[in-house]
C-alpha cells in the first residue's frame, strides 16, 4: 500500500511541478491570436489593440491571424486544431463559438469546445427602428405588429443563426408580435437598409457607428438590452423595464478563448495578462471611443459561469425556433 501512495504523491507533485514549469515558461514562443472574422470591423479592431499590449507583457511576438468564413467556424476550427498549450488564442464572440455550430453543419464543435478566459468589452443591443416607423415605444411597436390587417414587421439580422436573429426571434416569441426575419450578409448592409426604411427593426449592438447614427436620428432606439439604463443613453429604457418581454438581457462581447485542455496555470497567466491589458489607458480609451462598455476583468471561474449561461441561453432559443444545422 505504502509504496503506491508514495508513488501517487510523487506523481501528483511531479505533475504540479510540470504545470508550474509550464506556467513559468509560458509563453515559450510566439503567440497566435486567431480572429475568426475578416480584417476591419469592431472585433478585429479589438484584436489589433490588444496585440501590442500582450506582446509587451508576454515579451514574445504576438500575431493576429484573420481566418474568416462560415460565421467564424472556419477560424474556430483552425484554432482547435492547434496545440492546447496556450500559445494559440482565439478572439471571438458567442456568434462564432456558440451560435455558428448551431446553424453551420460543417462546424464540428460546440460552445463547450472552447474555454472563455475573459471578456474584453461588451456592447448591449438596442432595439432599433427605421427612422420613419411610427412607434414611439416598445408597447407601440408590439401593438403595431399585432394590429389586425397589418402584415407584421420585418426584422433584420446579419445572417441565419446570428445573434441579432436569435434575439429577434426571442423577442417575437415573448411578445407574440408578428415579425418576419430578413437576413443579410454582415452588419453593414443591414444597417443601410434600416436607415433606408427597407426593413422595420433590428437588434443592433451599441458600438461602432451606431451611437452616432442614433444621435443624428438616422435610426431610432426604443429600448436597450442591458440590466440598467446606460449612462450614454439615459433616455432609452431597458427592454426589461418596458415590461413587454419579461427579463430581456443580451450583450455581444469579444472574449479571449483557449482550448479546454490548456493547463489551468497557463490559462491563469493569460487571464492575468489580459486583465492587465484591460486596465491600461490605451485599451480603455479604445473601448470608450468605439462606443461599447468596458467589461470588468473576470476570474477564470467567473468567466466559466458566465460563458455557460450564454451557451444555455442561445441553445435554448435555437431549440425553441427549431434552428436547423444546415
Amino acid at each position, binding site marked *: 500500500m505504502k509504496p503506491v501512495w508514495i508513488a501517487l504523491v510523487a506523481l501528483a507533485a511531479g505533475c504540479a511541478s510540470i504545470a508550474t514549469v509550464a506556467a513559468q515558461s509560458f509563453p515559450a514562443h510566439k503567440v497566435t491570436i486567431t480572429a475568426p472574422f*475578416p480584417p*476591419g*470591423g469592431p472585433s478585429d479592431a479589438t484584436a489589433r489593440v490588444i496585440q501590442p499590449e500582450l506582446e509587451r507583457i508576454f515579451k514574445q511576438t504576438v500575431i493576429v491571424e484573420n481566418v474568416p468564413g462560415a460565421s467564424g467556424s472556419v477560424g474556430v476550427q483552425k484554432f482547435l486544431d492547434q496545440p492546447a498549450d496556450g500559445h494559440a488564442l482565439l478572439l471571438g464572440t458567442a456568434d462564432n463559438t456558440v451560435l455558428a455550430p448551431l446553424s453551420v*453543419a460543417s462546424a464540428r464543435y460546440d460552445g463547450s469546445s472552447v474555454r472563455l478566459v475573459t471578456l474584453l468589452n461588451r456592447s448591449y443591443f438596442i432595439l432599433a427602428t427605421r427612422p420613419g416607423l411610427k412607434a414611439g415605444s416598445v408597447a407601440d411597436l408590439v401593438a403595431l405588429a399585432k394590429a389586425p390587417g397589418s402584415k407584421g414587421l420585418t426584422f433584420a439580422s446579419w445572417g441565419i443563426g446570428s445573434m441579432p436573429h436569435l434575439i429577434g426571434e426571442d423577442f417575437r416569441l415573448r411578445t407574440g408580435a408578428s415579425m418576419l426575419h430578413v437576413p443579410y450578409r454582415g452588419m453593414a448592409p443591414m444597417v443601410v437598409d434600416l436607415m433606408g426604411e427597407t426593413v422595420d427593426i433590428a437588434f443592433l449592438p451599441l458600438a461602432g457607428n451606431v451611437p452616432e447614427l442614433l444621435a443624428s436620428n438616422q435610426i431610432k432606439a426604443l429600448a436597450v438590452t442591458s440590466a440598467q439604463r446606460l449612462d450614454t443613453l439615459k433616455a432609452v429604457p431597458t427592454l426589461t423595464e418596458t415590461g413587454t418581454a419579461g427579463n430581456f438581457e443580451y450583450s455581444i462581447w469579444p472574449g479571449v478563448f483557449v482550448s479546454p485542455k490548456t493547463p489551468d496555470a497557463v490559462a491563469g497567466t493569460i487571464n492575468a495578462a489580459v486583465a492587465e491589458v484591460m486596465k491600461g489607458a490605451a485599451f480603455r480609451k479604445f473601448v470608450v471611443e*468605439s462606443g461599447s462598455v468596458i467589461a470588468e476583468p473576470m476570474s477564470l471561474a467567473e468567466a466559466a459561469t458566465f460563458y455557460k449561461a450564454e451557451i444555455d441561453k442561445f441553445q435554448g432559443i435555437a431549440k425553441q425556433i427549431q434552428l436547423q444545422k*444546415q
Partner: protein
Amino acid sequence: MEILQNLALGFSHALSFENLLFCAIGCVVGTVIGLLPGLGPLATISLLLPLTYSIPTSGALIMLAGIYYGAQYGDSVSAITMKIPHASSIVTCIDGYQMTLKGKTGLALFTAGVSSFIGGTVSIVVLAWLAPQLGRVALLFGPADYVALMLFGFVCVSVITTGSLLNGLAMCLIGVLLGQVGTDVETGVPRFTFGLHSIADGIGLVSLALGCFGIAEIAKNIDARETRTPFSGRIDLIPTWPEFKRIVPSALRGSAVGSFLGLLPGGGPVIAQFAAYAVEKKFSRYRDQIGDGSIEGVAGPSGADEAAARTSFIPLMSIGIPENAVMALMMSAFIIKGIQPGPNMIAKHPDLFWGLVASMWVGNVFLLVLNVPLVRYWLSIFKIPYDVLFPSILFFCCIGTFSINNNIDDVYVTAAFGLIGYLFIKIKLDAAPLMLGFVLGPMLEENFRRAMLISRGSFDVFVERPISATLLSILALFLAWQVVGAMLRARRGRSGERPADTVAP
C-alpha cells in the same frame, strides 16, 4: 466658398513635408507590391496595415490611401502586360492585354495611368463638393432597385463578349452558377459546397480571376512554346496627339460612371468597370475596335475603377459603412487610430477628412509623375526569362490568394480555376462574361429574394418604387430598340443590300 476653405485646409495638411512623405511612400510601396502578379489592393493593404500602426493618425491614413491607389495602378500593370488581373483591373485587362499583343504596351500603360488620373480628379471634385449629401444615395436604393440595376448590368454581356453572343451568354450563365456556390443567405443552406469548408462562403472573386485569366494565360503561353516575351521590350510611352485625344473623352465618361457606381454598396469598382466598358462600346466613336486592343477599352474602365475606388470612401466617411472589403480594412485602420467613421466624422475631424481628400489628389499626381519615367524599370521585371518568371508568377499568385483569408484551400481553388480557364481558352470561350455573371448573379439573386421576402411575395414592389420602375422601363425600351434594330438589319440583309455585319446585343 466654404469648400475652397476646406480644400485649402486639406492641402495645408496634405502638403506638409511629413504627410507628403507618407503619401509618396504609400504610393511607391503600393505600386511595387501591386505590381507583383497576383497581389491586388486588398492583399497589399492587409499586408502593409501593420506598418501604419506607429505613424501619426493623418499620416497613417494618407499612407494607406496611397498604398491603395498605388496597388491599383501596379495591378493594372500586371493586368496589361501579362493578363494577370486582380479585382481592380478585370475589365482593363481585356483590351489592355490585346494592346500588349500588338506591341503597344507603353501606350496601354500610359492610357491606364492618365485615365486613372482623370478618374481620380473627377471623383475628388465629387467627394469635396458632395460627400455629406452623397452618403445618402446608398440609402435610396432598396432591394428592388438593386434588382433593376443588376438586370441592367446583364445587358453588358452582349458588350463584353468577343465573338459569338451565344457563347457569351453561356459563359455568363456559368458565371451565375458559380456564383451560387456557398451558403444561401436566406435559409443558411450550403449550396454546391460538397461539404468543403473552404467554399462555404462561396468562391472568391480573386481566385476566379487569377485562375481563369492569369494562370490560364501562363499555361497557354507554355503550351504555345513561343519565345514571345509578354511585351515587345521597346516601350513607347508617350502617345501621339491624336491618340491622346482619344483617351480623354473615354476616361471622362468612365469617371462619371465610376463616381456614381462607387457610391453603391456591393461590387463598387468591379461593376463600374463593366459599366464603363459597356458605355464605351455603345457611345465611343471607335466602338468597333473595342475588344481587340483599343485605347477606349482601357481608358473607360481605368477611369471608372479609379473614380469608384475613391467615391466608395463616401459611405465610409459619411455614414460609417464600409461597402467592400478594401473599405472594411480602411475602416479598421480608422478605428485602431481611435476614429470612428460615422455621420460626425467630417465635422469632428475636418483636418483629417479634408487632408485625406487633398492627399488623394496629391497621390494621383505622384503616381503619374512616378510612373511615366519609372514604368520601364517596373517592366524590366518582366524581362526575366520565362522559366524563372512563370514559376515566380505562380508563387505570387499563391501568396495573393492565400493572404486574403489565410486559408490554404483558396490556393487549391485558384489552381482548379486555372485548369478550367485553360480549358476555356482551348475551346475558345471567353472568360470575361463569366466574370460578369459571377459578380452580378449572386447580387441579383440576393436582392430579388430579399425584395420578394419584404413585399411578402408581391411583384408590385418593382413598379411601385420610382428607381426600379424607371430603370426597368429604360431597360425595356432599350431591349425593344435592340430587337427592332436587329430585325430591321436582318430584313435589309435578306433583301441583299448588304449583309448584317454585327449581331445585335
